[in-house]
């Protein structure tokens, strides 16, 4: 990595959700601020700025990373994925997103982006997880609303659907009489 001058702005170019983006960043600019304030990708949220809550988790070259502990200049040349890149189309939801909705796995939704990003990465490499493994993954995130039960249930359901098994009927109350 080239040596950067503290006060100067440096051109940073990377791929965000499959599209090339670039911005001018001081070396101290956090990746969270670059994504949110400069690129308008506000779906990634900032909950603690010390790497504990996980709300800001993004994927860098497919690996989950805390954007609040990442400098914008570290994204140079990388492939970055955020919550805005999870759905197959603007008016659709991914399997994981849809199971979150079906299981009421979110309330305020502030922490949700980070959890989706971590689970998305995990389910790609571990398509057949058990509940404890999923609790460990979700355990890297703080959610203050749900008590986690519905999140873990949604993740289990999403994994089954992604494996091609029929969606579970858990929590699917009859919608209409």
């Amino acid at each position, binding site marked *: 990595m080239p040596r950067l001058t503290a006060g100067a702005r440096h051109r940073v170019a990377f791929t965000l959700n499959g599209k090339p983006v670039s911005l001018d960043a001081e070396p101290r600019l956090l990746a969270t601020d670059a994504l949110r304030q400069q690129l308008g990708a506000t779906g*990634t949220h900032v909950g603690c700025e010390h790497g504990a809550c996980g709300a800001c988790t993004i994927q860098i070259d497919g690996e989950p990373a805390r954007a609040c502990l990442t400098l914008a200049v570290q994204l140079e040349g990388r492939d970055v994925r955020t919550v805005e890149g999870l759905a197959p189309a603007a008016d659709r939801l991914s399997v994981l997103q849809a199971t979150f*909705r079906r299981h009421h796995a979110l309330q305020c939704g502030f922490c949700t982006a980070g959890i989706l990003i971590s689970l998305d990465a995990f389910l790609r490499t571990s398509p057949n997880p058990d509940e404890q493994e999923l609790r460990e993954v979700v355990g890297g995130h703080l959610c*203050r609303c749900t008590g986690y*039960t519905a999140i873990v249930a949604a993740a289990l359901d999403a994994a089954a659907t992604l494996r091609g098994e029929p969606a579970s009927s858990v929590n699917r109350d009859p919608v209409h009489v």
Partner: protein
Amino acid sequence: MRPEAITWTGQSVERVEDAALLSGRGRFIDDLGVKPGTLHAAILRSPHAHADILSIDIAAAAAMPGVAAVVVGADLAKLTTPMLAGLKIAAENWPMAVERVRYVGEPVAIVVAMDRYLAEDALDAIEISYRTLPCVVEPLVSIAPDAPLLHEKTSGNLVSDRRFRYGDPESAFAEAAHQISVSIAYPRNTGSPMETFGVVAEYDPHEGVYDVLANFQGPFSIHAVLSRALKVPGNRLRLRMPPDSGGSFGVKQGVAPYIILMAVAARIAGRPVKWIEDRLEHLGAAVAATNRVTTLKAAVTSEGRITALDWDQVEDCGAYPRAPEPATLYRMHGNMTGAYDVRHVAIRNRVALTNKAPTGLVRGFGGPQVYYALERLMQRIAVELKLDPLAVIRANLIPGDAFPYRTASGALYDSGDYVRAIDLAAADGRLAALKRRRDEARAEGHLYGIGFAAAVEPSVSNMGYITTVLTAAERAKAGPKNGAQATATVAIDPVGSVSVHVASVPQGQGHRTVLAQVVADAFGLPWQDIRIVTELDTGRDAWSIASGNYSSRFAAAVAGTAHLAATRLRDKLARIAAGQLDVPAEQISFAGGAVFAKGVPEKTLPFGRVAALSHWSPALLPEGVDQAIRETAFWTPPELTAPTEFDEVNSSLCHGFIFDMAGVEVDPKSGKVRIDRYVTMHDCGTVLHPGMVHGQIRGGFAQALGATFYEELAYADDGAFLTGTFADYLLPTATETPDIEILHIETPSPFTPLGAKGVGEGNCMSTPVCLANAVADALGVSDITLPMTPGRVAALVAAEEPAPPANRSNRPAASTKAGDRTLRGEGQAKVAAPPEAIWTMLLDADQLAAIIPGCHGVKKLSDTHFTAEVTLGIGPVKGRYKAEIKLSDLDQPKAATLTGSVSGALGTGGGAGRITLTPGADGITTIAYTYEAAVGGKVAAIGGRLLDGAAKAIIGQFFAALARRAAPSRPGFFARLFGRRA
């Protein structure tokens, strides 16, 4: 009037909110754009718990790049007045320190700059001179006559002392077979929403209007406090809320003081100003639940029947009694007897001020403090009278045929069947299984216990309950306060589609979905067709003081009011349709998107045609119908009356019921508590959306789990705040949060339009004490202090065990006192130089400058007095400090005492150490040292866990540098020789 056909209400439909939140399209305050030219604020906060501000020098900060304004307390005092509080006392309630700081984290200055980075840079350049004052952090100490006084204009830190008497408690106690009591100290904790506070403020100097966007949650009684503090009429403080808010749990009431600060900053800067709170600011200074010291006594018969209760509560509201405090102490006033039929009650309520952050709304709001005492007492009654704990609870319950039930202190419990709820919870083998598991575990030598808790969960607060803190005479003078105005607007547009607005700003509860269900049922429409707006704009929307989202009032009050507004509009549409179809209005019905005459299938109109008529052909409106375009309903329950002259108060409209039972196993070595089973039975009246109700219960349980085992906003004895990160203030994660069994019965409230009651707060009240009762049962102990950290639980186990054998080293006495965080250490270093040479180095400014880690220069003020500038990094915080070092007790060249202090923007520290120099063989001197030190400010709040190691590392670096410098020719050898122990 109830809906004719309930189609959607009560179904767990998928939430309308979720697609946007799941795909990154949420609209939280920091996701919204701001006007070009908006400036960004950062806040400098006090590192001291109690100190006079002698001077503030902002010149260097104001001259820094990008800085537009620096605002200090004197500027604030020119443009505003202190905030009103519920107590009529002489303490001035400023949102930023004016002349004196009273808690660590109190705002002292605001920098407004081009961006947040530049604003934070400038904070470091503000020079403040403090004179520290003695401080007090414990409420019982603070109300003692000789305690340091927080507010000079008051006569003491005890700012309210009220006694209440209902029935004849004295006689009941005199006649009682037994008197049983508990004493508890409930700790400080908080809701800690994942989104912190945010404010964007602007000032129009011509119209004199403050326009503020903030993720405030209500109650909007605070709007009156804010406009008064800003010295404008209410119509010149336009307060707006963003569409989404990232959780609140009561806490976002506390954004109010920052609304004042940013409004003033924007006025002074002449530009819009935006501020987003960071997590350290939030944990240290946003909103804490009150810590409370309670002694609760019961007069009890031999059968375990309680005849009287005697409460003594000392509430700690922190440094300022900020509105709506002391509401935490009074919210439960009507239901201080919980689920029990007790007619004789004495209550003494005192409010103390301490050098800690101000308190306010936190989920449970007064309930955790009350039920921890009450339900621990129930367990103690059973233990002391050798009765079954569940039998003691059952013997005292309000009977099912007694509702509506008026409590001794004035609450009117709307509905319930507590006995049936408990029986159903215990049924189907649930209680039997718990007992079996306990017996089996105990037979194998494990520590297993069962806990119970019964709680009445109040919702829809009476806006008048807070005035119970005043005497009847004071209330008469101030005028009666009561009620709980809720409001909702339902509107029909020219193509007949329906929109709804409510003055209740959600923070994730799913209001828009439930309102769509409720309103759709009124009109016989699909719920997906109804559009709901929940953000509030006080300059435009219908609202009142009770507006907002708190005291679990949504389902009971707000959804019910939306139903009323929709029903009114529906009744007008029925009259319009009756005219069109030529049938009586009573014959008109709404279903499936159609309006029709019952029993006459051919007399049917599309809903949209009837609904749009008021827009397109008002001349066709029937006699007596003005329009069917928009209805705004206000609803306040008549049961919520002002406190009586005897201090009886119906503090809440609805009273749900919870019964919890849990089985836990304690690991005696680690002190870890494993929750084996947890069953929670709820009666929240009519359930509007089962999925959301379960979400509320599980979320409340998880927060309660944190309060039970992990969470405490901890302060040191010197007022330093110790838990400023999520590594210190521990929220439960998915790996600690067990799944629970949720059960329901429904006794609809007769006082709410839909029969619903609040549900979200109950487990915050019942769960901590249920688990504490289980641990008490497992260990056979009487005193349980929250949070039950492994260290505390292990200490309880150890206290119960026989003394360990002498040859076994003691279990590390896990510090059960958060206040003691003195750093202590000792060590030694070997230096290849004679003592005299080392002694000379230690007294030489230039030599010291080279030896002290991170030193930028040392000034020698006298032979034994030095000052230095140093940069130190401790964990995540690296900062520049001014150090002052004095030498005393000199015994040249053998020993000296060093006393030092450091101060900087990131915190303060002080300590003392003794150094001895002992000559040895080969010209090697052994330097031995001992030290004691303490730190405060930001470093203490976020680096606490790292301080011990950091201190040792820095001292190690100092002696390593000394060794190198004293014998530069043999670094390798002495690097090897260098050793230390601590």
